[in-house]
C-alpha cells in the first residue's frame, strides 16, 4: 500500500500536465505582466528597460485617475444594487408564507447564465435613445424624461453598471440564500420564544451569521467593479469621450490599440495592487474568523 501510493512515475504522470500548463499559461504571464511593466515595448521589436517610467507616466495621466474613479463608481453601484437588493430578496423569500418561491428564485438567477454580450446588446436596445424600452416606458407614462442614456458624460457609467448589477444580482442572491439556509432552525426558534419579531430576528441572528457570505460578496462586487471591462467595451467603447474608461479598458487600449505593451502592463500591475488593497480592507472589516455552528 505504502509503495503503491508512493509510486513516483504515477505521481509524475498525474501532476506534470497540470503543473506545466498552469505554469506556462497562468503563472508565468503574471510575472511577465510585472516584469514588462518596466519596459518600453511595442510587442515586436527590442524592449527597452525604463525602470519605473511607465508608472511615473501613469501617475501623471489624467485618464488613470478617471479610470480608477470609474472603477470605484462601478464597484459602488454593484455593492448597493447587488448586495443590497440581494439581501432584501433573500430575507423576503425565506419568509415561510411566500408562494411560488421556486419561480421567484429561477427568475432572479436566469440573467446570470446569459452571455455578457447578450445582456449588453439587450440593454443597448433598452437604452436606445429613439426606440428603447426605457424611453418608451417614460413616454407611455407621459413623463418627458426621454434621453440618450449612454451618451451622457456623467450618467453613462451608472447606466452600464446597472446592466452588470441586473445580470449578476442573482449570483449574490444565490450565495446569500445558501448561507441563510445553512443556519440551523433552532436559532430562529430560540428567537421566537424570546419574543423577537421577524425584523429583529433577522437583524440580530441572520445577518451576523452571514459574515462569511458577505465577505465573499463584497470581494466579488468590488474587484468585479474595479476589473470591469466587457460591459463598457460592448456598450460604449469607453465613451462618450473617455467617460466610461476603467483600468482594464485603459490597459486594453494601450496594448491592443496603440501597441504600448509596457504601459498596458503598468496599468495591469496597478489593477492588481488595487484589487489586493480592496481585498485586504474587506477582510479586515469583516474579520477573518469564520462562524461554525
Amino acid at each position, binding site marked *: *500500500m505504502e509503495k*503503491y*501510493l*508512493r509510486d513516483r512515475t*504515477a*505521481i509524475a504522470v*498525474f501532476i506534470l*500536465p*497540470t*503543473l506545466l*500548463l*498552469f505554469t*506556462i*499559461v*497562468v503563472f*508565468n*504571464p503574471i510575472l*511577465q*505582466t510585472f516584469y*514588462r511593466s518596466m519596459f518600453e515595448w511595442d*510587442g515586436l521589436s527590442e524592449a527597452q528597460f525604463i525602470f519605473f517610467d511607465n508608472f511615473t507616466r501613469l501617475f501623471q495621466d489624467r485618464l488613470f485617475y478617471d479610470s480608477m474613479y470609474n472603477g470605484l463608481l462601478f464597484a459602488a453601484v454593484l455593492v448597493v444594487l447587488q448586495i443590497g437588493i440581494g439581501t432584501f*430578496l433573500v430575507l423576503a*423569500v425565506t*419568509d415561510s*408564507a*411566500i408562494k411560488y418561491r421556486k*419561480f*421567484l*428564485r*429561477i*427568475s432572479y*438567477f*436566469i*440573467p446570470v*447564465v*446569459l*452571455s455578457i*454580450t*447578450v445582456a449588453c*446588446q439587450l440593454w*443597448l*436596445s*433598452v437604452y436606445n435613445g*429613439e*426606440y428603447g424600452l426605457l424611453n418608451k416606458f417614460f413616454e407611455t407614462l407621459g413623463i418627458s424624461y426621454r434621453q440618450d442614456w449612454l451618451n451622457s458624460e456623467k450618467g453613462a457609467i451608472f447606466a452600464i453598471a446597472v446592466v452588470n448589477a*441586473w445580470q449578476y444580482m442573482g*449570483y449574490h442572491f444565490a450565495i446569500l440564500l*445558501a448561507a441563510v439556509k445553512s443556519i440551523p432552525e433552532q436559532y430562529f426558534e430560540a428567537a421566537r420564544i424570546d419574543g423577537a419579531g*421577524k425584523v429583529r430576528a433577522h437583524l440580530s441572528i441572520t445577518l451576523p451569521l452571514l459574515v*462569511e457570505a458577505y*465577505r*465573499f460578496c463584497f470581494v466579488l462586487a468590488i474587484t468585479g467593479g474595479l*476589473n470591469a*471591462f466587457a460591459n463598457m467595451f*460592448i456598450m460604449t467603447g469607453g465613451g462618450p469621450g473617455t467617460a466610461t474608461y476603467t483600468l482594464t479598458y485603459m*490597459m486594453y487600449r494601450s*496594448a*491592443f490599440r496603440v501597441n504600448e*505593451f509596457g504601459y498596458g*502592463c503598468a496599468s495591469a500591475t496597478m489593477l492588481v495592487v488595487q484589487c489586493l488593497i480592496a481585498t485586504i480592507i474587506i477582510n479586515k472589516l469583516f474579520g477573518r474568523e469564520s462562524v461554525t455552528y
Partner: protein
Amino acid sequence: MRVIRKKKKQHIFLQFFLWVYAFISLYPLIWMVFYSLKNNDEIFVTNPYGFPVHFRIENYITAWSRYNVPVYFFNSLLVAVVTVIGTITLAVMFSYAVARMRWKLKDTARIYVMIGMFIPVQVIMIPLAILVRDFGLTNTYFALFIPYIAFNLAFSTAIFYGFFRTIPFELEESGCIDGASIYKTFFSIILPIVKPAIATVVIFIFLSSWNEFTMALILISKESLKTLPLGLLFFQGEFTTDWGAMGAAMTIASVPTILIYMLFSEQVENALTVGASVKG
C-alpha cells in the same frame, strides 16, 4: 389584533417587492424574445411591449441562414466541450495525486495551482496574447482551448481535492490487494466514485466557457473561429436596422444555457456559487 394587521401589511409589502424584482429581472428577456418575433414597425411603433401578434419566424431563418450564427454556435459548443473534457482529465489526475498519494511537496503543489482562482484574467491578458502569438496559435482553436483549460484548472482542482479528501483509503487498499496497477485502480475504482463532483465541474466549466468573452476577444479575430459572445458583438453594425433578426440571434445564443439552467436549476446554482465556499 394590531400585531396581526401589521404582520399582514409587512407581508404584502414583501410579496410586492419580490414580484416587482422578478419582473425587472425577467421582463427584458421576455421583451427580447417578443421582439425576435416582430418586424421593425411592430417593435418601434405599433406593439413595442406586448406579445407578438404575427409570429415572424422568418427572423430566425434570417439570423440562422444569412449570418454566421451556425458557425458561432458550433464554435461555442466545440470550445465548451473540449474545455470540459480537457480540464476534467487534468484536474482529476492532479487532485488525486495531491489528495491521496504520498509525496513531499504535495501541499505546495496544490496551493500553487489554487493561486489561479485569485487571478483575474485581465491581469495576464497582454502576456497571454503574446504567448499565444509566439506559439503560433493565433487564430486556431487552440488559442481558446489551451487558455480556457489552464484557467479552469484551479477551480476544478479545488473541488476535486475537497471531494477526494472525503472518501476512505480502503478503496485503494482493495485495488492494491487485488494486484491492480495504480492506473487501473484510478480508472476503475476512483473515477466512478468521483462522478457527483464531476457533474458540478462540468456544469460550471461548460457555462463559463460558453459565455467567455474577454479572452476570446483578445485571442480570436478570424470570423470562422468566433464563438457566440464574440460573433454577436459584431452583429451590432449589421443588424441595427433589423432588430427582429438581432433578437432572434440573441435568443438562439441563450437557449442552451437557459435550458441547462431550467433542467438542472439547483445543480447550476450550486456549481456557480460553490466558488464562494472554495475561495472563502
